[in-house]
């Protein structure tokens, strides 16, 4: 279905000459679909990290699996291999071609060599999860998911990164923006509220990150002590007779609790912290999009003022200013839609993140509980046995 054939539910044909109306129309049509998983027609997964060693470099590739019923794709399924560079390329292309939209963040590009092992299982897995999240967020976006670069990323056998510039769709053409130079204007209340919220939210995230890190640190130090504590019971048992088994039992218990604690701290490091940090990046992106919007508004209002100033000319508002007005409205609509989506996702993401944290802690305590509970009959049994033999 081509855009120019769209008919609104009430029967009137859609005016698709203006880019603003087409994008907001798409939003109107597809916003609900997006939230309902059953009508989703594009599924993307990132998995199977593999190490590639060449004479020039060593790097990791990830398998990207796509399943779709969309006609924009030639095939219903795709399996391609991509490396971080490719994801980075995609994100840049998306930002370029869809400046009115919020592009989800990528995990950080650079890691300090020597501090983090770029090829360790934990690092690769953490990165894989973040890349998977990135693609899923793009795939769930009613506008971004139709982007030609995204399509190429998912389907092209070899990602020629010079591709795409030649294809200029109406959408692509419409979004060449001038970056900056105009005096900033007052934000409309709606967007000012967004900015205020982000300014308040950012430090909270920072605090939570610090708290989580501190907890992991304290837990690690507690773990260190436990690893010394358990074996002392073992050495004690070596010179006891009746108490040998109970003491060994306690030693084993402490050891089990230590392992459970180690799992907890690892999980928190690998799952909790990266997601928090991702949101910090997300917020940065959002703030940038807000600023870009401000610029577009500033450009429009400046040009409008210039025209109004020259009232004597009595000419109709030039198409240049009209175009700016369109851009502002378009941007505002896109941003508003993206903001709503972002708020919703944020709510789900944090609910998921925090319940995940609760779950991990519950699992930790359940493991310890099981260990200690199984020890009790062992400790008490012996007494009965003692009674029989003495």
């Amino acid at each position, binding site marked *: 279905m081509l855009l120019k054939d769209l008919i609104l539910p009430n029967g009137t044909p859609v005016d698709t000459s203006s880019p603003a109306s087409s994008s907001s129309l798409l939003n109107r049509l597809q916003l609900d679909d997006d939230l309902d998983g059953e009508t989703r027609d594009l599924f993307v997964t990132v998995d199977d990290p593999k190490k590639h060693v060449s004479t020039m470099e060593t790097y990791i590739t990830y398998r990207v699996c796509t399943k779709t019923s969309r006609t924009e794709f030639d095939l219903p399924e795709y399996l391609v291999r991509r490396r971080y560079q490719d994801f980075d390329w995609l994100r840049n292309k998306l930002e370029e071609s869809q400046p009115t939209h919020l592009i989800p963040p990528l995990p950080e590009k650079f890691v300090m060599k020597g501090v983090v092992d770029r090829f360790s299982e934990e690092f690769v897995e953490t990165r894989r999860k973040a890349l998977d999240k990135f693609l899923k967020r793009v795939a769930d976006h009613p506008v971004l998911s139709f982007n030609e670069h995204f399509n190429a990323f998912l389907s092209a056998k070899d990602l020629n990164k010079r591709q795409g510039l030649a294809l200029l769709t109406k959408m692509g053409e419409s979004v060449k923006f001038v970056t900056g130079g105009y005096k900033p204007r007052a934000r409309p209340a709606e967007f000012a509220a967004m900015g205020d919220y982000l300014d308040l939210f950012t430090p909270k995230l920072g605090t939570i990150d610090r708290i989580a890190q501190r907890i992991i640190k304290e837990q690690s130090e507690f773990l260190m002590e436990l690893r010394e*504590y358990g074996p002392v019971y073992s050495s004690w048992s070596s010179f006891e007779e009746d108490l040998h088994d109970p003491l060994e039992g306690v030693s084993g218990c402490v050891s089990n609790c230590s392992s459970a604690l180690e799992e907890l701290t690892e999980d928190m490091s690998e799952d909790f912290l990266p997601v928090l940090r991702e949101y910090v990046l997300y917020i940065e992106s959002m703030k940038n999009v807000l600023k870009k919007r401000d610029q577009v508004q500033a450009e429009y209002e400046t040009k409008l003022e210039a025209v109004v100033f020259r009232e004597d000319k009595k000419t109709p508002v030039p198409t240049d200013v009209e175009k700016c007005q369109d851009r502002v409205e378009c941007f505002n609509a896109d941003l508003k839609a993206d903001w709503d989506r972002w708020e919703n996702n944020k709510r789900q993401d*944090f609910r998921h993140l925090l319940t995940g944290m609760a779950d991990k802690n*519950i699992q930790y305590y359940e493991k310890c509980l099981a260990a200690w509970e199984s020890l009790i009959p062992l400790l008490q049994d012996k007494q009965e046995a003692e009674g029989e033999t003495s």
Partner: protein
Amino acid sequence: MADSGSEDIAVIGNTDLTPSESENNLKNTMVEKGTSLLKKMEISVAEAEKRTGKNAVNMQETYTVYLIETRPVDAASEGNNPVPDSLWRRYSEFELLRNYLLVTYPFVVVPPLPEKRAEFVWHKLSADNMDPDFVERRRVGLENFLLRVASHPALSSDKIFYLFLTEENGWKETVFETGFQAKADSRLKALHATFRVKNPDKRFAEMKHYGDELQAVISQLLRVRARAADRLYGVYKVHGNYGRVFSEWSAIEKEMGDGLQSAGHHMDAYAASVDDILEEEEHYADQLKEYLFYADALRTVCRKHELTQYELEMAVQDLTSKKQQREELATGTIRTFSLKGMTSKLFGQETPEQREAKLKMLETQIEEGEELVKERNSECDEFVKSAWVDIERFKEQKDHDLREALISYAIMQISMCKKGIQVWNNAKECFNKM
């Protein structure tokens, strides 16, 4: 030892303890009601109080006194609740009592006192002797000490112990009148002397070694446990910060706010729960400490055996040498070196009369020596017999008590895990509502 006196003694249970706690107290100290003072008398250390007064060098000092209450067992069962007899004692008097018992019953593994100064503390606990928590734990430890002495087959019938519980004034003088101090000093000297025993009883040597090992391992355990407690405290308390930040965050959210706010409260509760947890664990540490000090008492008994064995060997050695001297004198041969022998060689033999006199003296000495050896031999046998009985008793008590301690430790851990699961489930419910 002296009899225990009249039966009209008031006994009070500690009113601060719940009935189950009292019972646990008794159970944990494995009281043998059958053979001891405790059959007739309920003993408790009910309270602690601060006093100030002038000490020996006429300086103001602050110290703590403990209220000992006693009541006859029958009184409670008859439905009466008479006022208990009570008196105040300070820690130094407990020390005096224990020193007396150590000297008077050297074959007994004497129950230890709670520590004089707080050791193996983790940072939140005060190492200050005046700290109310320390005083409270000491009160419990002193009561435990009295109950152990009162349930010991030999110690419980001691008159001085009885007076300690019943006679506030003049008790100190009575103790000193027994003259134990002199024995204490010589005992202390002897125990610290270095000597080698030719034929130590293998069992005692093994026991001493066991005491050394037990002391070392419990010390290490207490040290690491204290460090772990510190860390655990940190883990729980930092979660309290979540409480604050969730609260602040909820203020800028619309739908997420309520869930966050209530989750924050649960995080606060989680952080606060560690205080109780660690207080309970301190009780476990105290149980371990008691056996840390018991290990020392055990080693003391083994050391005492070495001493008696050594003294016997010395007496035997002395007797043997005297007998040999007699033989030489009688036969005229000099097999052993002696100054007399040397001088007689250098300055000529002695007269027959001199030799007669010497022989006679030796005979007396040998007689005395044989008496001494007999004495020391029976002393040694007696000691070995009664000490080994008490060591066996101690072993059983130790195995029982430590097993109980481990069980209650496991129960504590289970309780802590259950609390943790509950709090996090509550928080999870709140997060789900976000």
